[in-house]
């Protein structure tokens, strides 16, 4: 049986800034506690911004070709793209309204068109990034947001099965290759999830510094990561290789119906490259 579209709209609304009206949503969804402004900021503003372009784009940055492609999807539906067409709340809201149109449509051919649009949105613009994104939220955020992320993954997975979403997606076909050691954009590529298969937040990097005993430096993520590598390449690459292995496992355990092949392949390539670097750095350390 198809899920009520309202579920997706409600899940999307919860990544908007906290509002008293969220209390009702939280209750209906059965989520534990509530999101206060601080937790919201930590998750959605500081650690894991909910924009598709960050997780699908070649640089791991907001906007660009990925956002434009999504805006094009809105336009193809003859809708004016909102200011942030690739925001998760906008995408889930759109998903809900496409489903509502489909269910309200009496004419079979039109109904099929709505369904096709929804399937495309799901396959191209949601399943391509939301499952790993939600796993990152579930892994790093406290109870409320972790539960939200699990519910979201479950709901999307159910839809993927219901609609038999195809695995290939244009976004991921266009992603440049995995991070290549020796390449000067190596660190940037590591931080671009679609290229590396890894989602590394600020909090992850701070944890990496703690676990390796290295000094965390304040700055943007690329700067922090570079400084860890500069301080102790062997330790830093070792930690990163372990992170990549962890991500590989997470991708492998994606729920049925969620195509995770691209992500698992990339995480594995990255793990191998990092492992090589780790070994090379170890040797250098021993030589010197």
């Amino acid at each position: 049986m198809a899920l009520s579209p309202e579920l997706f709209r409600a899940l999307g609304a919860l990544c908007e800034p906290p509002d008293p009206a969220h209390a009702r949503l939280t209750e209906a969804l059965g989520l534990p506690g509530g999101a206060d402004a601080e937790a919201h900021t930590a998750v959605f503003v500081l650690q894991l911004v909910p924009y598709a372009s960050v997780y699908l784009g070649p640089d791991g940055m907001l906007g660009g070709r990925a956002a434009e492609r999504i805006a094009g999807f809105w336009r193809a539906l003859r809708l004016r793209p909102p200011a942030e067409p690739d925001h998760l709340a906008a995408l889930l809201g759109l998903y809900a309204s496409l489903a509502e149109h489909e269910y309200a449509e009496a004419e079979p051919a039109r109904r099929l068109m709505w369904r096709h649009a929804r399937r495309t949105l799901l396959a191209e613009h949601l399943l391509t990034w939301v499952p790993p994104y939600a796993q990152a939220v579930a892994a790093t955020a406290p109870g409320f947001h972790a539960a939200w992320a699990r519910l979201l993954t479950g709901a999307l997975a159910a839809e993927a099965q219901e609609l038999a979403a195809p695995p290939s997606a244009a976004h991921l076909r266009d992603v440049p290759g995995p991070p290549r050691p020796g390449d000067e954009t190596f660190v940037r590529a590591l931080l671009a999830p679609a290229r590396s298969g890894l989602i590394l937040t600020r909090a992850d990097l701070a944890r990496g510094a703690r676990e390796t005993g290295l000094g965390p430096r304040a700055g943007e993520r690329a700067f922090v990561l570079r400084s860890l590598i500069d301080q102790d390449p062997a330790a830093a690459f070792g930690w990163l290789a372990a992170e990549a292995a962890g991500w590989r496992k997470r991708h492998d355990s994606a729920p049925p119906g969620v195509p995770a092949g691209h992500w698992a392949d990339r995480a594995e390539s990255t793990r191998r490259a990092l492992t090589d670097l780790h070994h090379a750095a170890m040797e250098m350390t021993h030589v010197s």
Partner: protein
Amino acid sequence: MPGLEEIAARVSAARQDTAARGETFYPGASRVHLAAFPPKERWDDWVELDARRREHRSMLVPTTCFNCESACGLLAYVDRETLTVRKFEGNPEHPGSRGRNCAKGPATLNQVTDPDRILAPLKRAGARGEGRWTQVSWDEALDDIAARIRAAITGGRPNEVMYHVGRPGEDGFTERVLASWGVDGHNSHTNVCSSGARAGYHFWTGIDRPSPDHAGADVILLISSHLEAGHYFNPHAQRVMDAKARGATLIVFDTRLSNTATHADHWIAPQPGSEAAILLAIARHLIATGRHDREFVRRWWNWREYLAAEHPGEEATFERFERILGELYAEYTFEFAAAESGVAASVIARIAEAVAGAGTRLSTHNWRSAAAGNLGGWQVSRCLFLLNCLLGAVATEGGTHPNAWNKFVPRPIHMPGHPTTWNELTWPVEYPLALNELSFLLPHFLKEGRGRLEVYFSRVYNPVWTNPDGLSWVEALTDTDLVGLHAALTPTWNETAYFADYILPMGVGSERHDVHSYEQYDGQWIGFRQPVLRAARARLGETVTDTRDVNPGQVWEENEFWTELSWRIDPDGSLGIRRHHESAARPGEKLTVDEYYGHMFEHSVPGLPEAAAAEGRTPLEYMRRYGAFEIRSGVGPVHEEEVPAGVLDGAVDDAFGRVYSPVPPVPGPNIVPVATPEPDAEGRRPVGVRVDGVVRRGFPTPSGRLEFYSRTLAEWGWPEHALPGYIRSHVHPSALEPGQKVLISTFRLPTQIHTRGANAKWLNELAHTNPLWIHPDDAAPLGVAMGDLVRVETEIGHFVLKAWVTEGIRPGVVACSHHMGRWKPAGHTDGGPRQVAATVDLAKAGDRWSMHRRRGVEPYGSADPDTRRIWWGDVGVHQNLTFPVQPDPISGQHCWHQAVRVRPAGPGDAYGDIAVDTAKAHAAYRRWLARTRDATAHSPDGTRRPYWLMRPLKPSRDAYLLAEEPADGPLT
């Protein structure tokens, strides 16, 4: 743990339950597809949770924002328990603003709750300008003012009564009040604002404003900062963005990097005053490459009239005209425009190509900006509209329409006749073609002895602060011989009110009635402004007949005020005034606002009675509930409409196809102002124009066509400007002395409201200062760094402010926003907006004035705890005081740009210092006056002014005749 299906079903059910209770399930208008916007069915009882999850039940009552001209819809959330306004949001039922507002709209709440607002009528206690006040009753103030006006009217001194308006309320309302008194006493701010741009449009179309259809355009060309600071900030901005989202190209001419410029596909920063040269280069390109719409030009331009006047005896064919047209503009090459503007020829060529590609989907707009800055600025809008006229992008989808076709002014219950007098203080004989009153010259006219004022109303206007040369205003206003009584009608304290005899508090946007209509897309709508608490109480079954009963303190509204005042001027009706303010239903009683608007909505707004009846409401109830009504959309090219055969009975054509008919006009419900072309010699009225054999409505110009050639300009002394052309500005580089720069002072801060913002705390926190924009290349030689004090010297004085070093301004040009720089004289015990006004010492020695800042603003205790949280102290500098008046000799527009010198501040200079010599100011006035060509020497027909031109409060025809020997004629 419940399954997904169960959770999903629960969410659906929860939303349905919540909606059924009239409450909101999703928070505010968010990315979730406006799922939460209050549906209008629930506007009587809408429930929201506050931050502590307490429920609040509100009535949603519409009104119209009063914080700029756009008249966007607002929805007041009136708390059902306390009957106070909790907040203002947009009104989704408003066809112009479509539920959206700029920051100034919701800040209406700050104006309502301003702890420093004026709550009762005040009368000065000491000398005028001394700053001491006593509270008086409305009766006392009304009786005093009414007696003086009555004495002036009955004593044959009607020209001593003047009403001077800044932000107009309802179109024509106060003009009709003055007409009912028989007084030519209307004075507006328009000549310091938009009359330059208006003149350019008016000479083309007989209508003085454009209505660009931005949403439908492929290319948008703005000579203004419309997106963030223009007149149509929000309604136009949202449509510009709609067009951009569709892929339209935005071209912006602005010497300063405005927010609008940051959104442009092509932004150029030309030398100020060179805009018309660039536009003519684009026009030349269109003509030379044959990209103009030949058929449109042939059918609609008055080229035959031009050929007859300027090329008599030559063959009058269109082909001949086209050849001449090419020759006329041949000199305006891209290279010429580049030399004038400093913008590369290749860039101008690219823009010209973009314009050429727009076809009939070119929307253009010029308002204030270059038209308000330069000598000859009126030619900027004229040259801009030339592009539309060349491409046929006139009243097309995506083109620019004349505003009157996209505006609806409903005929009111009473229409008093034209005054029979002519006021030389506002319409002096030197400026026969000025589109609006020469308002900013008033102090000089008074000082020269051209007249005096018995009663002067300033109304939502602050000439001391807004106008150039404000200290000449202070000199005139403090002279009780020149101004017998000054009544300031204002919701807030302002620099002009300090020099009043009475301060009469009038309501802000949610506390007064008005009907508005503005051109914002190709359609016609009306918006209703109403005291929201009055409407809320009416919904609860109460009857309110006096808006003072619901407004704070004794704050009133003008509609009721003017009726009351008119009755007191003519208590027994013997002057013929009272009848215009009487009830039609109950003769002998005062007209109420309910009857006034009830009558208007019932009889003069097509479609409204039917829409109201469909909901079981009266038209007035409908407007009180929804606040706006769309009469028509997709009006299209009115000039192409065929004139009905019945109107053409006995009609005759003149030599150029203008068609005149003896059939009298049938008054329609829409009284939107347009020009009134003259009848023919037999008294037949112009009804249309013959185009290829068919009589079409055409334009309200003498020729009935688009007037490429203005016979009016040619005949009234300005033949050299009879065609769209380029006039070198008073700040053209060739006119500057070595070391002088151009100062641009015309731009706004998009979150301020001239001086009406007063204590709008949210807005003041956003914007409270106005530094001098200066390019690094100009700052470096002066040794000036960011934040350093600089002294800017004008012709009549100087001001001292901080430098803001930025590449967002053209080198050689500096800029300072005309917002901010509010002040209050030290020693004034009452008054002054304490969040934005510095306390100053204002001193005068002979003709030399100085202003020195004692302190900026600081936190203070009040009814509003936020006033203790004021963190800013700097409130900007009042530069306008140091500007001489610079009236354009044709349009009458004050030419704002200044030639200045910028120096690092000296040891004696302090932030906010102002020095002005009003003798020099008067000399500057005389110098600009000498540029004029007055009607006594140049009128072709013995009148003061071409009768066909638009004019607020048009007097009767007889009043247009020049006196044989003017008793108090021009002092030149």
